[in-house]
C-alpha cells in the first residue's frame, strides 16, 4: 500500500508538476492535486508544498499564499501528525505560516542561483531521511533568489540542539544562510522545509538521483 500524497497548487506554483511526477515515480500513483482555495483536505499521509512564485512572491515570498484557505487545513493536518514537505517556495510558506521558525531572506549574493548544491544529511530517524546515512553528502539542485535562512541566535541554537537541522550546505553556501542551513524540521520531525529541490534529483538523466531516497524514506515511513 503506497502512501497518500497531496500536492497543493497555488496561483504561481511552478514545481507542482515536478513534485507530482517524483511522487508518482515512487508511489506508483498520481498524488492528489489540491487547489489553494480548497477548505477541506482529503485523507493524506503527506502534503507537498511545491516551489514556484506563489502570488508572484509579491510582498514577500510565500507571504500571500500563507493566507490561502488551504493553509489552515495544512496546519491542522500537520498538528495531527500528517507529514508536510515544503520545498523552496513551499519552505517560504512554512515559515510565513509559522509552521517552521525563522525566515528566508534575499540571497547574500543578491542574485537568483540555480545550480547543484552539496548537502550533508542530519539525523536519519525522521520519515524523510531513513534511507540516508548521517553525514552523507548529497548533490541536489537549488534554484532560488530568497533562500538565505535566518533566525535569532536562540532559535538557531535550539534548532541545532534539538537536531532539527535536516540538511546543511557542506561545500559552498549558495545563499548565505545562517549556519549553512539548507532545511529544517519542526519539533516533531514530521514537517520539513528545505530550499534544495529533491524532486529534481530523482533520476540519473536529470543529473542526480540523490533526492530519490527522501521519497523512498517517506514511502516506507508512511505506507
Amino acid at each position, binding site marked *: 500500500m503506497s502512501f497518500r500524497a497531496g500536492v497543493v497548487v497555488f496561483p504561481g506554483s*511552478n514545481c507542482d508538476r515536478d513534485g507530482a511526477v517524483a511522487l508518482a515515480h515512487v508511489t506508483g500513483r498520481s498524488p492528489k492535486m489540491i487547489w489553494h482555495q480548497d477548505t477541506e483536505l482529503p485523507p493524506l499521509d503527506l502534503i507537498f508544498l511545491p516551489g514556484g*512564485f506563489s502570488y508572484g512572491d509579491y510582498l514577500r515570498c510565500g507571504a500571500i499564499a500563507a493566507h490561502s484557505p488551504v493553509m489552515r487545513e495544512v496546519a491542522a493536518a500537520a498538528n495531527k501528525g500528517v507529514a508536510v514537505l515544503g520545498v523552496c517556495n513551499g519552505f517560504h510558506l512554512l515559515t510565513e505560516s509559522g509552521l517552521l521558525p525563522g525566515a528566508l531572506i534575499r540571497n547574500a549574493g543578491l542574485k*537568483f542561483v*540555480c545550480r547543484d548544491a552539496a548537502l550533508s544529511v542530519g539525523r536519519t530517524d525522521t520519515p524523510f531521511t531513513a534511507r540516508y546515512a548521517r553525514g552523507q553528502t548529497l548533490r541536489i539542485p537549488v534554484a532560488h533568489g530568497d533562500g538565505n535562512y535566518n533566525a535569532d541566535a536562540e532559535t538557531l541554537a535550539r534548532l541545532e540542539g534539538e537536531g532539527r537541522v535536516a540538511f546543511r550546505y557542506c561545500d559552498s553556501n549558495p545563499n548565505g544562510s545562517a549556519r549553512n542551513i539548507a532545511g529544517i524540521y519542526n519539533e516533531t520531525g514530521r514537517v520539513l522545509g528545505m530550499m534544495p529541490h529533491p524532486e529534481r534529483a530523482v533520476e540519473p*538523466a536529470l*543529473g542526480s538521483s540523490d533526492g530519490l531516497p527522501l521519497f523512498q524514506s517517506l514511502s516506507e515511513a508512511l505506507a
Partner: protein
Amino acid sequence: MNTDRIPAADLPDIQVSTEADGTGQGLSAAEYARAVEICGRAPNLLELGIFSVMWSEHCSYKSSKKWLRQFPTQAPWVIYGPGENAGAVAIGDGLAACFKMESHNHPSFIEPYQGAATGVGGILRDVFTMGARPVAILNALRFGDPAHPKTRHLIDGVVRGIGGYGNCVGVPTVGGECEFDPSYNGNPLVNAMAVGIAPANRIFTAKAEGAGNPVVYVGAKTGRDGIHGATMASTTFDDDAEQQRPTVQVGDPFTEKLLIEACLELMATDAIVAIQDMGAAGLTSSSFEMASKGGLGVELALDRVPMRETAMRPYEIMLSESQERMLMVLKPGREDVAEAIFTKWELDFAVIGRLTETGRMVLTWDDTTVADVPIPPLADEAPEYDRPWIPTEPRPALDAASLPPLGDWHEALVRLIGGPNGASRRWIWEQYDHMVMGDSLVVNGVGPGGDAALLRIHGTARALALTSDCTPRYCEADPVQGGRQAVAEAYRNLSATGAKPLAITDNLNFGSPERPEIMGQFVGCTQGMAEAAGALDFPVVSGNVSLYNETNGQAILPTPVVGGLGVLDDLGQAVSIAWRDESLDLILIGAGTGHLGCSAYLRDVLGRTGPDAGPPPPVDLAAEKQNGTAVRDLIGRGLVAACHDLSEGGLLVAAAEMALASGSGCALNLADASAGTLFGEDQGRYLIATARGADVLQRAALAGVPAQIVGHTGGGALTVNGGAPISLDDLRTAHEGWLPAFADTAA
C-alpha cells in the same frame, strides 16, 4: 466603470490631424496619402495611429518581406510555417513543437530589466497561443565592448530581467549565446526563443470564423505602457534614446503564469474558435490579424476593455502594449465556460465585441463610432519596399605572411577561452532556472554549456535538442557565407548531440534598411541562410526581423540569429561534450585548411578585426550535410563517447572545452602546431571521443567523410605534440573567471 471617462464628443482621438500628414505618427508622406485613399477621407488621429503601427517596420516587415520569401519553409514534418504565431513541426508520439524567436532589442537598451523580461513574456505567449505548453526558453544576447561604460549595466539588467520573468513563470531557460562587440555599444541585442509542445492535432490559430461570434479580452488590464512601442522599434536611436522609456512595457510574470494555465485549461474544452496574443501594437494588431485571416470584420466597444488607469482614451487603448493579454473568438454561448476558468485564475475577462461580415474594423466608445476602417488594405496591403541595396565588397584572402608566427599556444588558448567571447557563460545561466519542469537532461555531467540544450519530451523517451547561433563577424565580412554559416552551425550543434535537425526560427537583426549597404547585408545573409536551409533540409518555420539597430549612424554587425530545433528518438543515445573515460581516441571529423580569416584567434590574440581580418571560412553545404549525417549515425550506433562541433577558436578551443567539461585532460598529436591547425575555423568539423576508434574511422571512410585520430583522452592537463602541458586547473581559472570578474565588479 470609470466615472471620469471622457465623453466621446470630447475625444481628441476623433479629430483629424491639423498637420494633414502622418509624419507625427511615423508615416511617410506617401504612406499618409495611401491611408487617405484607403479611408476615402482624411483619417482621424485614432485611425492614423492604427495605420502607423500596422505599417511600422516591426509589424509589416515592409523592407524585408521580399527577401524572406526566398526561405524554404516546407518539409514533411512541418505543420505550420511562417505566418502563424509560431512555427510548428511534428516531433513524434503525436506531438508538435511550436517555436519562434523574437527580438526585444530597442526596449532592452532603454530599460534592460523590463525590456528583456517582456521579450521573454511576449515570445512565450506566441507559443502558448497555439495551444502549446511552453517547455523551454533560449536567449541570444549581444552587448557592446566590455570597456564601454554601459555594458555592465546592460548585461546585469538583461540577465536579471530574463531570469526574473522565466524563473517566475516556471519555464526553464535552457540555452542561448552571449557575445560582446563594440558595434553593439548603442544597440544591444536581446533575442528570446520559446519552445512549446502541443498535441499535433490540437494546434490553435488566429483565424477568426463565424460572423456574430463573441470577441473576448482576457488577461491583464490595459494601461498606458508601451504605447507606440512598435513604432519606436522601427526607428534608429540618437543620444536621447532613454527619453523613450515610457514606450517600454512592464512585465508581470505571475499574471503570465496564470494566463498560461487558464488558456491551456480553456483550450482543453471546445470553446475557442481563434486566439491571438496581444503583442506588438497590442489590441490593434491582434484584432486586425484575426479578422484578416478569417476574411471578416470586427466591432469592438473599447469602453468595455478592462483598464488599469483612469481617463484612458481609445487611442491609448488601441496602441497600448500592456503585457499578458489575449484576444479570443469564442463559440457562441461558450462565454460562461471561459469566464469561469479565467475567474478561477483571477484574470480579467470581458466580451468586448463581435465578428461581422463587413470586412471593416469599427471601434465604438459609449456607442459612438470613433474609428471605421477597412481591414484587408491595412493588414495585407501594407506598403512593401524593394529598398535599394549594394552587395558587400568581398575581402581579399588573408595574407598569411602578414601574420606573426604563433609563439606560445598556451597564452593564445588562455586568451581565447578566458576572454570576453570565449569565457564560460555560467554567470548567466546560473541566474536562470534551467531545470524547472523536470525534463532538462544532464549528459555526463553537462547540462547548460554544451553544444545544444537537451530536453526530454515530457512523458516520452524522446528528447528535443535546442540551440541558437550566429557569427556576426563572418556576416559582416561576407553576408552570404555568414548567413550560410549561422544555419550550418545550428545544424552542427544539434547533430553533435545526436539529434536530427528539423527546423529553424530566426531573428534577423540589422541596421537601417534605408542604407543600401545595410540592405546589402540583409540581402546577402538571407540568401546564404536560404541556401543552407534548403541544402540541409532545415526549413525556416518562423522568425522575426529587427531593423534600425543603429545609434547615431553606427549600425550593429549584421546578426541573423538562427534558432535550431532537433529531435532524438531515444534520449538515452544523447551525447554531450564531456567524456567519462580515459584513453579514448579523439577523432577529428571534417577537412580543414587552417583558415584563419575572421577567426577568434585574429580578433582575440592578434587584435585584428574588420577588413584586416580577411574573409570568413567558406561553408561547403554538401560537406556539412555529409559530415553531420555521419556524426549522427556514429552517435546512433553508440560509437561516440563525446562530441563537440568546432567553431570559434577551432580545434584547440574545442578540445579544451571538452576537457574542462569532462574534468579530464587530453593529449593532441597533430601534423603541426601552427596557428591555422590549432585555431583555424574551417567549417563542417566535429571532434569526437570514442572507445572504438577503428570502427569510427571505418564508418567514416564508408561515408566518404574525412576523419583522423588527433589525440587521446586522459590526465589532468592539455598537451600538444608532447610539449609543455597546461593544467585543467589553469584553464578552468581562466575560463570561469572572466565573466564574474567583469559583471560582479561595481561600476
